[in-house]
């Protein structure tokens, strides 16, 4: 199955609910739909976040990850939206959606996309808190998660 891949890298905020409904409408016939939404956490006095990315490579890396997911699982469609630039606490950073005839495929593909997007797509987060700004450090657990696949 060659599932359509919809990959967007943008500074603009987006409406996750509207994207879910639009995705569901265009994947008519698929029984299972999984989404992941990453949101700027409000803990530790975090007030805002800045996301830097590598224009050109970002889109290529996301497309490669999504294509790999579509090859491993039987999917009807894949959506990836990832923001860059300035975000406030509570704002949606990114969203992944997968549609499949069977729920196990939709779950596994979304989980896989998140693991690879986290460690293989060129985004860097900087958090702005009461003590100033600091780059978010990559977690060993995120790198280790890739070994699951």
């Amino acid at each position, binding site marked *: 199955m060659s599932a359509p891949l919809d990959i967007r890298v943008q500074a603009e905020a987006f409406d996750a609910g509207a994207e879910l409904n639009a995705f569901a409408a265009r994947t008519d016939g698929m029984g299972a739909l999984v989404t992941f939404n990453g949101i700027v956490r409000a803990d530790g006095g975090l007030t805002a976040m800045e996301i830097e990315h590598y224009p050109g490579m970002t889109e290529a890396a996301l497309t490669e990850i999504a294509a790999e997911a579509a090859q491993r699982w039987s999917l009807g469609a894949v959506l990836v939206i990832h923001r860059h630039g300035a975000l406030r606490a509570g704002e949606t950073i990114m969203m992944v959606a997968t549609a499949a005839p069977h729920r196990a495929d939709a779950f596994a593909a979304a989980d896989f996309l998140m693991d690879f997007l*986290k460690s*293989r797509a060129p985004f860097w987060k900087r958090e702005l808190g009461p003590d100033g700004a600091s780059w978010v*450090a990559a977690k060993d657990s995120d790198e280790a998660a890739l070994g699951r696949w």
Partner: protein
Amino acid sequence: MDVLYFAWVRERIGLPRERVESDAATPRALVEELRAREDRYAAAFADLSALRVAVDQKLTDFDAPLDGAREVAFFPPMTGG
């Protein structure tokens, strides 16, 4: 070739991209040349295990061939999602 820096690598070096004339065979050799230039490069490249490299927008390793590369990028491990 164009050399790009992102996140704290960009901050330490003080610029996001520059044109570099080099015959370095690998990213590791290119790093050695840059380190020799100025302290800010030495500081940014102090620990290669904390860095990642992409050649022509493809993630690779520090010993990959640079032959014909148009763009090399150095950055810390990615933290998207």
